[in-house]
């Protein structure tokens, strides 16, 4: 019952905010926040039961035989549910301040609550269809929130792109469901996993590939990642909640949930690991070329999820899931803190127009500093533990090249995150410098100014400051400390491993790795420090600070086209699929339909008319001709009677 409560209260909140929005006004924010809070508490109360073997299970209803629906709460879904509701609660709270004064304040919270509901449905379902429903609804919530400011063309386009790419993911999962139901005749996870040993390798691979298409679309893996940077068109709390902390990690959840399938299919593991590694490094490289603060964070999110996917893909489930755990805190914090900046600078998002913000937004300064340290994996901060565990896990599962990619990515991450930090907080404030001086393209300037119009100039005047500051401050704590859950002297007995002992029993098979764990940590630290060093040299030295304007302009203008255009993936997709589909549609709709098909129909009609014209000649209007024809007919008639018909 508690489980149902945790699931449905956010839905009720969403409906209330949507239906009663005009009457609730600012109360809607508090209502929605309370709903998420209740959901969090309910989930927390189930902790004890969920960590028992078997977890909590609640059967709901059945469509027909084989299609039984229910909810389940085991350590994996418990972790996700807690993060979703916990971090979600803080972000809801923050949004009350951030969205204050927006015309569609209540609608925003309706969408946010709906998102929490959908996400809970996704992680609590005990069957594929329930998961898929959650999966689709999460995509829908994301669509609504990205396109929240729907009067803006770019937001509308970004929302549509996100939705369609997510549907591609849904479709992949649907395909996997066909395979599963055709072979298992049940949609429940438990039945599927129990039967998975009987699947042949090709079938297993096909199922895993289908599921992974879903995971890749939702978790922004190459090449289905292009929606994530565009998704930053949504309000900043949305970016924090959906596109950093929760929704995008659904892919990680899916792969971890299907650990029994993946464990039996090395080919699928290879596929997922490869895509994850590729995403990690591509995201990191693209992160170095961005100027929009939210886009930098978006690419870093993509890169970090690449890590997680790589981890869970190759079998390092605990590490991948742990990275989700820590990442949820520090990435949410980074986004919320950047939201503070954006808010304070009246919706300025371009880091080139920031600078010297340490004094103006001290809380953001500290929060981003902690976040950056955490994401770079500085020892002591949470990211250090989880990231190390993934990198080490990859090696233990026998993929040395992924190990290398992981280390390299860590270095690049350190570089671009510190680049963000230095440009934003050090030096002089550049907000009043002519944009052209900073190398910003004029049309881009126009676009930036138009950002986040609805909350312009309304936020700081009315909203109580603490609703925005408190969540940021609170998130600092887990950002630093969460990683310590993974710490133990012998690796096996950390609280984390004990928590997941039942979920991922195969973790114990860790073969003797070529590199011991402490060495990995040292190497990673070295690479990270090197990355930081480059960032310091380019942005933090005294000389760099002195002519920051000129340097930024230089960098903007010299940025490789390949990076600015994100490896042309978008262009390629647009050119091949979008234009291709439109071309075919025009061809069919403008040529085939009216000319060929209707032409054939008209041909039939024309032949009837032609026959009529032919016969018309007989209709001479001459009485005598008619008489002749009648005689002819009489003659035939007579001939019939005289000679009979030939038999």
């Amino acid at each position, binding site marked *: 019952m508690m489980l149902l409560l945790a699931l449905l209260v956010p839905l009720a909140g969403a409906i209330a905010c949507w239906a009663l929005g005009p009457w609730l006004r600012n109360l809607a924010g508090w209502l929605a926040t309370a709903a998420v809070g209740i959901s969090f508490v309910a989930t927390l109360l189930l902790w004890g039961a969920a960590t028992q073997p078997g977890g909590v299970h609640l059967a709901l209803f059945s469509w027909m035989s084989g299609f039984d629906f229910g909810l389940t709460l085991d350590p994996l879904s418990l972790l996700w549910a807690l993060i979703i509701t916990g971090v979600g609660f803080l972000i809801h709270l923050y949004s009350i301040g951030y969205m204050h004064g927006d015309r569609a304040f209540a609608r925003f919270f309706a969408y946010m609550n709906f998102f929490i509901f959908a996400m809970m449905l996704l992680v609590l379902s005990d069957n594929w269809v329930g998961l898929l429903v959650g999966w689709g609804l999460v995509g829908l919530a994301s669509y609504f929130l990205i396109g929240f400011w729907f009067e803006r063309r770019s937001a509308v386009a970004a929302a549509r792109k996100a939705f369609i790419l997510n549907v591609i993911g849904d479709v992949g999962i649907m395909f996997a469901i066909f395979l599963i139901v055709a072979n298992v005749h049940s949609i429940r996870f438990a039945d599927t996993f129990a039967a998975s040993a009987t699947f042949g390798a090709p079938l297993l691979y096909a199922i895993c590939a289908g599921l992974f298409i879903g995971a890749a679309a939702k978790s922004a893996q190459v090449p289905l990642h292009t929606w994530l940077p565009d998704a930053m068109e949504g309000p900043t709390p949305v970016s924090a909640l959906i596109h950093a902390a929760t929704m995008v990690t659904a892919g990680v959840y899916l792969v971890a949930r299907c650990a029994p399938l993946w464990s039996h299919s090395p080919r699928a593991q290879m596929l997922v690991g490869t895509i994850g590694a590729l995403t990690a490094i591509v995201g990191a490289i693209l992160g170095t070329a961005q100027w929009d603060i939210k886009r930098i964070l978006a690419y870093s999110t993509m890169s970090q999820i690449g890590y997680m996917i790589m981890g869970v893909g190759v079998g390092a489930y605990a590490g991948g899931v742990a990275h989700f755990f820590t990442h949820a805190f520090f990435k949410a914090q980074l986004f919320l803190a950047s939201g503070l900046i954006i808010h304070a600078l009246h919706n300025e998002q371009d880091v080139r127009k920031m600078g010297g913000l340490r004094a103006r937004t001290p809380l953001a300064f500290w929060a981003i500093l902690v976040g950056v340290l955490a994401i770079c994996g500085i020892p002591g901060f949470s990211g250090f533990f989880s990231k190390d565990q993934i990198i080490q896990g990859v090696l233990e599962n026998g993929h040395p090249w992924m190990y290398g990619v992981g280390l390299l990515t860590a270095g690049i991450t350190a570089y671009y995150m510190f680049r963000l930090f230095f440009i934003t907080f050090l030096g002089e404030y550049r907000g009043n410098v002519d944009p052209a001086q900073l190398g910003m393209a004029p049309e881009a300037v126009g676009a930036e100014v138009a950002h986040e119009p609805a909350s312009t100039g309304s936020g700081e005047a009315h909203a109580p400051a603490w609703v925005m500051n408190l969540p940021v401050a609170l998130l600092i704590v887990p950002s630093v400390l969460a990683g310590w859950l993974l710490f133990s002297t012998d690796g096996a007995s950390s609280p984390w491993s004990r928590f997941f002992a039942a979920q991922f029993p195969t973790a114990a098979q860790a073969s003797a790795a070529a590199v011991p764990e402490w060495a990995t940590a040292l190497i990673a630290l070295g690479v990270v420090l090197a990355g930081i060093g480059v960032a310091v040299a380019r942005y933090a030295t005294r000389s760099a600070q002195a002519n920051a304007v000129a340097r930024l302009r230089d960098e903007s203008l010299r940025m490789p086209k390949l990076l600015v255009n994100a490896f042309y993936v978008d262009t390629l997709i647009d050119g091949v699929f979008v234009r291709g589909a439109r071309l075919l549609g025009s061809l069919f709709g403008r040529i085939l339909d009216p000319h060929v098909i209707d032409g054939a129909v008209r041909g039939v009609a024309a032949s009837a008319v032609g026959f009529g014209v032919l*016969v018309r000649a*007989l*209709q*001479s209007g*001459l*009485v*005598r001709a008619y*008489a*002749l024809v009648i005689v002819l007919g009489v003659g035939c008639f007579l001939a019939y009677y005289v000679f009979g018909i030939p038999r």
Partner: protein
Amino acid sequence: MTPGLLPMPLVDYLALSAVMFFIGVTGVIVRRNPLVMLMSIELMFNAANLLFVAYARAWLNDAGHIFAFLVITVAAAEAAIALAIVVIAFRASKNVDVDEASALRG
């Protein structure tokens, strides 16, 4: 004469009627004067009547007479109407030729 017996074999009447009928047909087809065409039609009617009467006599059945009577009535009606049409159709025309009246041409 013997009741129920024809003065001549039935086939003779048939042949005579057929010849008359086809003379009428030829008239309708070949002539272009509407009046002559109408008269040819009367010929055809009469050929048919001849058969009715002959068969009535052969079978001693009144129905043939009655039908011949009806045919004469219809012929009268037909002649009246057809002549009216001829009159109005050619009242304003300089030439009397049914081939000129071909408004029904398709």
